[in-house]
């Protein structure tokens, strides 16, 4: 903890930041392999935000600041390969599985497989395309917000997103064709 004492203003900003927790969770879900990891990552994001809240210069840009922390935290975790915590089925995973199995078991198995394929395809994307793809498709951010967060032009966001979608689509089709040939 850089400074354990937080001013009232800082605590107020942190409270405001907590209103974006679902956005952050969705983004973390896009970068991680499962919801359990996504929840852990969301906690890490808020811990970093709490520790560094003193460095936030403009409170009006707190959302962009938090999104930047989320993106850096997720990419950092990816580098350190901390996404291998799939061994034990956590409370989170069990509940997810239950919710799938409440419907048709065959359909839920197919859905789980398709989701797995999407995860694989996203993980194969180059870093720059992946961050744009996740922020758009999982974080539901506008082009403008993505451009602000990544400090790039909106045009660049669009072109990267288009290339990322194309690549994901191709890999998904490849996966389908491989399955058929088997």
């Amino acid at each position, binding site marked *: *903890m850089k400074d*354990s004492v937080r001013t009232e203003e800082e605590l107020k900003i942190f409270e405001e930041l*907590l209103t974006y*927790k*679902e956005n952050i*969770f*969705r983004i973390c*879900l896009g970068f991680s392999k499962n*919801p359990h990891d*996504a*929840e852990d990552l*969301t*906690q890490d994001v*808020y*811990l970093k935000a*709490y520790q560094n809240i003193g460095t936030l210069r403009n409170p009006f840009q707190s959302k962009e600041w938090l999104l930047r922390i989320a993106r850096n935290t997720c990419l950092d975790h990816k580098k350190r390969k901390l996404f291998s915590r799939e061994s034990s089925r956590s409370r*989170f995973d069990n*509940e*997810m599985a239950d*919710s*799938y199995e409440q419907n048709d078991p065959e359909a839920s198995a197919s*859905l789980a497989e*398709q*989701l797995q394929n*999407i995860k694989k395809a996203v993980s194969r994307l180059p870093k720059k395309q992946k961050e744009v793809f996740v922020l758009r*498709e*999982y974080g539901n951010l506008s082009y403008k917000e993505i451009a602000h967060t990544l400090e790039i032009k909106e045009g660049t966001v669009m072109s990267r997103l288009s290339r990322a*979608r*194309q690549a*994901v*689509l191709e890999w*998904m089709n490849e996966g389908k064709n491989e399955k058929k040939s088997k």
Partner: protein
Amino acid sequence: MKRKVNEEKFDEIEKLILKEKEEALHVFRKTDFSAHLKTYIESESKKNLSPPFLSRIPVPTLAILAFFLFLGLVALLNRFLPPPSLNEIKAIESFLSEAPGLQSLTKKEGLTPAQPMKPSAFELSIQNALALAQKKSVREIQQKEEKVIPSNPKNFSPQDFYKSLEILIKEKKLELFLSQFLKKSEEV
């Protein structure tokens, strides 16, 4: 045309992602995230509390510091503690002579505990050389004195007297230094 087909296909993927997000969020909303976060922040802040001063110093630096402290302590003890008195030395000697193991050892080797050690050949040669040098310097001084002091006291001027006195003082100093050095070497 191809682009439109791709967009349609990607709509399917978007729907799948939407489904995944909804399911995950459904479970996420059930958890008390704020409470979990609070305990997480508290536990992390406890972990990161600044360690005590000494634990932040690297081990080699600590070892060097400890060594110098020890040296300082030894120097202080040497300076302020009085040397052992004769009585103390005698008491230690008698205690050692009464010790069963040492008693037999001294008897066998024919040594008494307080017997002084004989100087080695090297030490003797140094002592002899120093003694010779002292004798030589004394002889030279005597010769000079004879030269400086004229046989006829009537021709002797006050300037000559001061000169001879200066030479005498210098030589006396040298003699004193040599004699002290000789004494010390004998002690060693």
